[in-house]
Every structure is written in structure tokens, then in C-alpha cells.
């Protein structure tokens, strides 16, 4: 029995939706308090953090939770029947991310909707803890079902041993470390480091309004969270077209990147990031002087657009740094992604997302979105290509009944 097992999924989802609704208010005092702490932890500007919180809590609606559950489990009441065929796993541990703001919260909410006991290892900004307080105000049972605490390397072995499942947001080393040192008999689900790419087709290039909208969107996707999120755009492919000169395209995109620094001011950068950006810009200038490619930036090096760098080079995973690569067809995107073994989370496009399904499946993309929407994944989107709730339940089949 878990702390939530006697409650209906609808009741749990409603409490989560109501709590999230309160967090959508930028003046909600807990949100105001935690915003400054997130800014301090991440170094992102306040508008970027506000955007993240709006996107996160704006998506966390009761109806969206129930729709996602229904899509994966058949119907939400599958979890509620007295002789239920869908059961909670028991205790689930979630390790929160260093960079992505609140990435643990949707996972936590779905794990709660599946009636699990949940423990979340929070970051220094205590965002998850603050939201958990609001959840408890909406539904007292969360007090017993949900525990949020800081990571304590000395005691994690015992803390995590009770968990049936550990969800880790981290790089390969982190996931391996948690699995080997802390998981015990628990299953581990790792969400590793990923990046995102975009494609501007010839049709969008030829339409000035569509082109401007695509560049504005791509600039937002590249600028938010200083390029650190898995939905952050780092490579923008564009179809070679006689209608548009690559330099003019890059100039236009750079202008959009510069405008994005006004909407989302540049965050705090490390000395190594600043040095790496300078090195990349100057190397691109050297190449440009030899007639190869070009570099575009503002005088503060707030962003960096690198036009047509050698395809032997992987994208630069630097703040607001985007490589623009001309391609004859989307097939060349596949070649590039395979060459650099890029783990791609999202493909941003200008046309109909479904028309890129074949390419996306070949490069392992989890989501196709319009440029400008990459950083706003719907709640039901399968982060990392994985289910939202199905991994937090176990199924019980009855012979003779439809399975």
C-alpha cells in the first residue's frame, strides 16, 4: 500500500493541476522567492527563468495529466479499480537536474498520479521543495507520499535502496555512477545529455514573413537557458536555395539572435565558456578570411552564429552558439548527426512536423516541433522518447480478460 493508493487518480491530478495553476501567477510568493534562487544557481537571466516556470506550470494542467495518462494506460481509472490491472511500483526516487529548470517536476507528478511514494533529490534552489509545499496545501495525502530533500552523498546508499525505480537526469557518467553506487536492486532510468537541431526549408526561406518568424523562433530556442537544455538549438541546417544567399540568411539570423538578447538577457558565463566562445569566433574569422564560412556576433559576444564551419566539426555546445549548415536535402542532416553521434532530443522545423517523421526516426529524435516551440514541450511529450507514466506502474493481467 502506498500513501495515495486510496485516492482516485482524478483527485490526485486535480490537486496537481490546482497547485500548478497557483504557480502560474508570477506574483505567487513561493514562486517569487524561488525565482531568485534559480537565477543564482543557474546564472540565467530573470526573464529566462520566468519563461521556464511559465512553460513548466502552464503545461501542468489536470486535463493534460489525465489525457496523457489515458493515452498511455487506456484510461485514468485503470489505476483506481478495486481489482486494478495497473498498480503503483511503490517507491520512486527522482534525481533532479543541474541545468534544466524543474525537469523533475513532470516526472514527479506522473509518478504521484500513478500513486507511488516519491522521493525527489532537489537542487540548491529548492524549486521542487517549494512546489511540493503547494501540493500539500492542495492535498494533505501528499505529505506522506512525497518527500523532497537535498542530495547527501554520504547517505544516499540507504536512502535510495528502498526505491523500486530511480529516475536520473544526468550525463552518462552520472547515470553509471548512480546505478553502480546507489541503485542497489532498483531499476534505473537515465535521461542523458542531449541536444537539439533545426531545419529551415527552401519554402520558408523564400517567404520573408515565414523566414523572419522562423529565425525569431530559432533564436529563442537557441538563447533560452544559454543553450544548456536538451531542447536548445545548436545546429540550424538550411536548404541550399538559389533564392537566398547563405551570408544574408546568417546575417538575418544573427539579427534575430541579437534581438533575443533583449528579450532574454545574457546570463552569467564561466571563464572557460567565454574563452571558448572567443576562440571559436576568432577561428571562424580566420576561416572567413580564407574564404570559408563566416562568424556573426554582437560586440559583447552575447551570441555566436557560425556559418558553414567544416562538417567534420561537431556543433559547439557553448552558450547561444549556433552553427548554420547548408544542406542539399534533409538526408545530409542524417549524415551529419551520424558522423558526430549526436543524441538529438528535438528537431525544429518550418514545415509540417509529420513530414519529417522518416528523417526524425533515423536520427533518433524524440520530438519534432516548430522552430520557436522547441523549448515549450507539451506535458504529454515523451521526454527522451520514453513514456510519461507507463514506467511508473506495473501491470497485472487476468487470464481470460482482454489484455
Amino acid at each position: 500500500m502506498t500513501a495515495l493508493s486510496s485516492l482516485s487518480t482524478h483527485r490526485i491530478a486535480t490537486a496537481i493541476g490546482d497547485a500548478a495553476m497557483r504557480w502560474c501567477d508570477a506574483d505567487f510568493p513561493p514562486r517569487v522567492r524561488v525565482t531568485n534562487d534559480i537565477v543564482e544557481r543557474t546564472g540565467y537571466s530573470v526573464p529566462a527563468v520566468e519563461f521556464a516556470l511559465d512553460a513548466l506550470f502552464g503545461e501542468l494542467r489536470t486535463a493534460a495529466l489525465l489525457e496523457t495518462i489515458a493515452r498511455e494506460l487506456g484510461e485514468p481509472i485503470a489505476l483506481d479499480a478495486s481489482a486494478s490491472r495497473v498498480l503503483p511500483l511503490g517507491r520512486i526516487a527522482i534525481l533532479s537536474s543541474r541545468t534544466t529548470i524543474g525537469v523533475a517536476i513532470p516526472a514527479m507528478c506522473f509518478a504521484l498520479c500513478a500513486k507511488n511514494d516519491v522521493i525527489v533529490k532537489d537542487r540548491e534552489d529548492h524549486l521542487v521543495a517549494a512546489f511540493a509545499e503547494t501540493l500539500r496545501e492542495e492535498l494533505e495525502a501528499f505529505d506522506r507520499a512525497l518527500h523532497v530533500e537535498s542530495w547527501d552523498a554520504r547517505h544516499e546508499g540507504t536512502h535510495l535502496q528502498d526505491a523500486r525505480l530511480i529516475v536520473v537526469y544526468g550525463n552518462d557518467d552520472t547515470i553509471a555512477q548512480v546505478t553502480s553506487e546507489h541503485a542497489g536492486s532498483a531499476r534505473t532510468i537515465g535521461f542523458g545529455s542531449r541536444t537539439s537541431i533545426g531545419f529551415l526549408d527552401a519554402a520558408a526561406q523564400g517567404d520573408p514573413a515565414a523566414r523572419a518568424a522562423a529565425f525569431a523562433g530559432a533564436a529563442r530556442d537557441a538563447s533560452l537557458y544559454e543553450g544548456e537544455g536538451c531542447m536548445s538549438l545548436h545546429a540550424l541546417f538550411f536548404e541550399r536555395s538559389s533564392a537566398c544567399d547563405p551570408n544574408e540568411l546568417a546575417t538575418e539570423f544573427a539579427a534575430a539572435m541579437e534581438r533575443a538578447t533583449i528579450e532574454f538577457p545574457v546570463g552569467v558565463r564561466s571563464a572557460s565558456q567565454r574563452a571558448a566562445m572567443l576562440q571559436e569566433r576568432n577561428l571562424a574569422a580566420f576561416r572567413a578570411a580564407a574564404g570559408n564560412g563566416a562568424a556573426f556576433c554582437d560586440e559583447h559576444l552575447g551570441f555566436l552564429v557560425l556559418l558553414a564551419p567544416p562538417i567534420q566539426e561537431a556543433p559547439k555546445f557553448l552558450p547561444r552558439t549556433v552553427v548554420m549548415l547548408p544542406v542539399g536535402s534533409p538526408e545530409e542532416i542524417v549524415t551529419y548527426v551520424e558522423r558526430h553521434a549526436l543524441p538529438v532530443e528535438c528537431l525544429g522545423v518550418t514545415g509540417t512536423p509529420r513530414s519529417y517523421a522518416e528523417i526524425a526516426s533515423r536520427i533518433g529524435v524524440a520530438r519534432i516541433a516548430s522552430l520557436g516551440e522547441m523549448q515549450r514541450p507539451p506535458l504529454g511529450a515523451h521526454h527522451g522518447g520514453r513514456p510519461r507514466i507507463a514506467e511508473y506502474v506495473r501491470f497485472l493481467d487476468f487470464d481470460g480478460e482482454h489484455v
Partner: protein
Amino acid sequence: MSREREAEELDSRILATIERWHRHGVRLGEAEFDDLAIAIFDYQLRYAPAYAAYCAGYGLSPSALPTTWRAIPPLPARAFKEAAIAAFPSDRAELLFESSGTTLGAPSRHYIENRRLYDASLLAGFERAMLGDGARLRYLLLVPNPAQRPHSSLGYMMGRVAAQFGDGETGWYLDEDRLLLDAFTADIGDACARAQPLCIATTAFSLLHLIEAFEERGVTITLPAGSRIMETGGFKGRERSVAREELYARAMRTFGIAAESILAEYGMSELCSQYYDLPGSERHVAEAIHRVKIAPPWLRTRVLDERERECAPGTIGALAHIDLANRSSCLAVLTEDLGAAVDEGIVLLGRESGAALRGCSLDAEDLRRS
């Protein structure tokens, strides 16, 4: 005047500068450095087309020269991987050095026209930094052997040093990447028996291997008085590394040597001159203690922010070196190294690594710290 004649005249001026400091300790004043740097820059704008094209982007040309060495544009070190950065016909190079290939892609190539200038720079810098007591040492070298790696600048440098300052019994203990431990052990034992002071010149990576091998065998040695270790190269591109403090502490235990007898050299294949630790110097920068590195007077460094402005002393930035001995290539090189300016020289903080794929990343190091 022909290019060759211009090059000869510049080299004569640079050699005289080296000689004055090497023999008499005379340093270059700001105006003298400016004068020589801009003369070399002017020459390079006319004879190094790849660098000249890059400088045109800064609005600089032989008819529009800067007034100070600080305004000479530093060329990214990676440009040496992509083009021949040479202010002379590169097929006439007396020396060609290639980077060790520790990073992905093609090696960096540094073409040097005049071996004499290169030798003078490295020998003067080494003698002043490492041989202040005038010791004639036996050189035990755990660096690339020029017989196997003729384009290793480190191997060439230590070969020249050993030939000039050694006791004639120089040993090389790397067979490609394999450490010749038995030969090293035998030779170090022989030197100890004869009380012959040594200089063990080694990359940090080889030093770690050496120490581990001795530790596994439970062997410790007390090197003859006057011995020293020159460590260089860090752990670039290696999977394993240890903190420098730990490495030195273990070296002190293994070889019975004092901390001040272990000195780090900092150089790169794209430069003709080197930095060395200033013995006994330590500065607190970026929440850690670092040794100060000093350069000979013909090598200066600017610490740059992302706008290519000079950082205030003590502030971390990208290191851009201006090496007057780089007459035949490019005198200003922007490195991928981070550091800070301090009173006597610079502190080196290592290689920039700001370009890691993050995504939803919670670093393992972060986990351990929390």
C-alpha cells in the same frame, strides 16, 4: 630589401635581445618590446598571407600598423591545424613541429625558418629557469624521443637542452608511449650510486605512471642532491589525471625531493619560447593556490575576456601569447588555456572546457560535491 635580408635583420635583433638577457640579465623595456614586436608584425603582414588576411579583419595592414604590441591580433592556435602559418616559404623550414595530436583532428603544424633562433630562445629560457645554480645534470627524459617523433617540440627541446647542459649520459625512457621502466630504474640507480645530480624531464602523465610503478614495487629513492624534476604537458587528452598537488606530493615521496625542486614548464608547439614556474611563488586565484609562471622578456602574455579586452590582474581569461621568437610564423597566438595575470607573470588554470554537451545534465562531480 629582400625578404631573406629582412628576416636576417629581425633575427639578429631578436638574438641580441635573447643574448643580452641570457648573459647579462638585461630585460626589454616597454618601448623596445613595442618596437621589435611591431617590426616583426609588419614583416608577417607582408610575408605570412594567412595571418595577414586575418589581421585585415582588424583593419590592420603594413600601411595601418598598431602602435603597441597589445593591439596585435592573436591568431587562434587552432589555425595552425588548418593552414601553413609561415612568413617564409614553408618548404624551407629548418624545423617543423607538430602538436601531440591529443585533440581530435589534424595536428597543429609550426614551421620554423631559423633553427638558431629557436635554439637560442629555448636554451636561454631553460638555463635561467632550471639551471640557476649552473649545475651540470644528467638528463633522464620521459618525453617523446626525437628518433621516433622528430616533430615533437618537447622532444627536440629536451634533446637540445641535454646536449648543451648535460653530462653526456642522457637517457630516453619512452618507447612511443611505453615507459621503459627497467632501463629508467637501472640508470637512476647508477646515477644515485655516483651521486650524479639528475634532471628528470617528464610529462605529467608519464610522471604519474612512473610514480605508480615505483609505488607498486614499494620502491622509494632519494635523488642525489641538486636533482630536479621538470614536469610539463598536464594530462591533455588523457582519460586519467590527478591534481597537480597530489602528483607533486607523490613525486616528493617517491624520489625524496623537495617541492621547490619540482618545476613545471609551460610551452606549446606553436610557440618558440616557454614559461617556467617561479620557485617558491604561489598565488591564490579562483579559489585555489597556483604557482606563478614566468617568461623570458621576449615572451609576453595578455589575458583576454570574450571581447578581447585585457582582464584586470587576477581575473581569469584566455591566454594570448606574444612571442618575439616566432618571427617566422605568427608572433601572437590565442591559446585555449585559461589563466590570470599576476605581478610577476601568470598563473595557468588549464584548458578551457566550456563546450561540453549538457542537456538535462547533473554532472557526476556535482553529485559527489552535493
